[in-house]
């Protein structure tokens, strides 16, 4: 008997529609796995959708507003159309002299802009107060019920639809009243901070990656450095905060406060300290990603360059870096996304929770979006959670715009 007849692989005659050799079982296993993968993708997408919906739900909806003073009683024209001087008259006639003095001390009324005056009049005189707010979903589905409830509980209040995320929210500075609070200082603080973080971390990260990939020999010291960088990427951010507090805020306070250059006081709780701390935090991520990108550049490209009599540096600058740049930028996007959302290290390096002055440079005191969100969510009033949701949307939009810019840049490099 030969091997063929003792182990019949196929029935005779061959029927392609009938499966043999446990083929149906093999297909079944494949189907089970692929449906598992589909389910995990769906769970991820669902979680994301629920998250976005809950933020959106909080960020707009019906509110019951009650003004302490009716704007119509202040002037027969809408307040927005009044001049600076008219607003000043309203302000002085409705506020006590002590409070006017306080305002004058902050910034003389004569020097304030019309928009600033308008905000003051609303904040100090009209004092609109949101008595109650409802989520977007309730507002859409149970509108009549809400209006009835409001009429009963707050007879003076007007029910209106409000998107907490509006232009005023973006351009207003901090306020202790949620109706008037805005994120301008926090947004500017975040943008300044990220700009300095990139300026600090990007060149150092790429430089370190070039050194490790193109120059460093594979010896014990370099392997230890490499392992440490890999591990540093997983260190909790609060630890970097402690490091930043100890080094940048305290030890290098003279430098980070700007006192060394004759700017600012001796306090190192500045944008610069925060940027350096966040820079340290994202450096390992940047280095690892840049290394991956540099390693992915085909060796044949380097050889072609060397073969023409190029030096190592000419090869790196003209061929390796341009080819690796899209990958490096992808890594930078990841790193910056992480940095812009970090809260813990900022709390440690002393970001202010309440600040009305815009940051103006690296030595300014500052606040940042995540700090504001964190701060607002801890307040007892419901309205602060509404503006926290709005601030989250501002944070996400600014993050997406930063990433879009990086992606555009990356595509430019890829096309070359």
């Amino acid at each position, binding site marked *: 008997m030969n091997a063929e007849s003792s182990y019949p692989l196929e029935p005779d005659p061959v029927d392609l529609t009938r499966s043999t050799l446990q083929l149906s079982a093999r297909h079944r296993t494949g189907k089970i796995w692929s449906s598992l993968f589909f389910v995990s993708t769906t769970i991820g997408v669902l979680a994301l959708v629920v998250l976005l919906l809950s933020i959106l739900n909080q960020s707009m909806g019906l509110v019951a507003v009650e003004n302490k003073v009716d704007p119509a009683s202040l002037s027969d024209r809408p307040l927005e159309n009044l001049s600076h001087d008219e607003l000043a008259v309203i302000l002085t006639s409705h506020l006590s002299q002590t409070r006017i003095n306080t305002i004058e001390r902050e910034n003389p009324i004569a020097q304030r802009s019309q928009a600033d005056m308008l905000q003051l009049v609303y904040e100090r005189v009209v004092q609109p107060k949101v008595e109650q707010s409802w989520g977007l979903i309730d507002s859409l589905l149970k509108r009549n019920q809400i209006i009835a409830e409001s009429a009963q509980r707050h007879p003076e209040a007007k029910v209106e639809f409000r998107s907490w995320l509006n232009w005023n929210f973006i351009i207003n500075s901090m306020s202790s009243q949620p109706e008037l609070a805005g994120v301008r200082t926090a947004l500017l603080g975040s943008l300044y901070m990220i700009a300095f973080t990139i300026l600090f971390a990007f060149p150092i990260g790429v430089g370190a990656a070039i050194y490790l990939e193109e120059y460093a020999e594979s010896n014990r010291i370099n392997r230890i450095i490499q392992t440490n960088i890999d591990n540093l990427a997983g260190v909790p951010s609060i630890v970097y905060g402690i490091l930043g507090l100890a080094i940048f805020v305290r030890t290098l306070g003279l430098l980070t406060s700007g006192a060394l250059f004759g700017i600012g006081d001796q306090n190192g709780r500045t944008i610069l300290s925060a940027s350096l701390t966040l820079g340290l935090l994202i450096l390992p991520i940047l280095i690892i990603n840049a290394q991956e990108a540099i390693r992915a550049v085909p060796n*044949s490209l380097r050889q072609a360059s060397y073969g*023409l009599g*190029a030096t190592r540096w000419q090869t790196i600058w003209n061929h390796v870096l341009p080819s690796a740049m899209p990958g490096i930028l992808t890594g930078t996007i990841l790193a910056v996304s992480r940095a812009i959302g970090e809260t813990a290290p900022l709390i440690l390096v002393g970001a202010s929770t309440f600040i009305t002055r815009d940051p103006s440079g690296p030595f300014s005191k500052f606040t940042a979006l995540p700090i504001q969100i964190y701060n607002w969510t801890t307040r007892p009033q419901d309205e602060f959670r509404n503006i926290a949701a709005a601030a989250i949307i501002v944070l996400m939009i600014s993050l997406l715009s930063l990433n879009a810019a990086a992606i555009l840049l990356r595509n430019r490099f890829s096309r070359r």
Partner: protein
Amino acid sequence: MNPETNAKYAIETRDMDFYYGNFRAVKNVNLQFERQKISAIIGPSGCGKSTVLRSFNRMNDFIPGTRVKGEILFHGQNLYDPQVDPVQVRRLIGMVFQKPNPFPKTIYENVAWGARINGIPGIMDELVEESLVKAALWDEVKDDLRKNALALSGGQQQRLCIARALAVRPEIILMDEPCSALDPIATLKIEELMRDLSKNYTIIIVTHNMQQAARASDYTAFFTMEQDRAGVMVEYGQTGQIFTNPRDKRTEDYITGRFG
């Protein structure tokens, strides 16, 4: 040393050994490559023929732990003298690789870049045209020099790599299996081109393809591997003699297909 001392040979090796760490990959190579001729190096896989070729322009320097013993003479100077700058060596001894590897830039930039970084004198446009003409590529690309080089076909890319090497004014061109990724027609074009180029340049080619060595080269060196896995040079002579009347039994076995 007087540069005229070995003017007859483009490259001469004397008792050359090549080491990867402690492993001797190639031993005792003595070869003289004639000027303005095409010399082929053939042999089975792993016999060290590429290693030998790449040590002629110090491309092995990038592999950690490699070293060369003995001498490789170029204009009477040892290429591995500590005072020799390998960057200078690679400008004078160009290389074309197994897989076409143009830069992901324009055709023009591919040719011009090497000349620019080496400070080759002359008008760049003329140099680019001259190099592309010499590489028999000018007529095909003269109207779209600004096109990305990766859009060319494999054979065109390889000729572009040759043009790129010519633009830095080398004396010797090393070719490491330049046709192994090309179809027969593109291969034939490269072989014709090699013949043209050999009027002005010394060409040393490593090939797996014995017909190619027989067709295209003036001299052939046969390498093989010994029991200790070290590559050795078995026989070197005029291509006609190697292929029709080999002196060594091992050469005969290889070219008749009884081995390898």
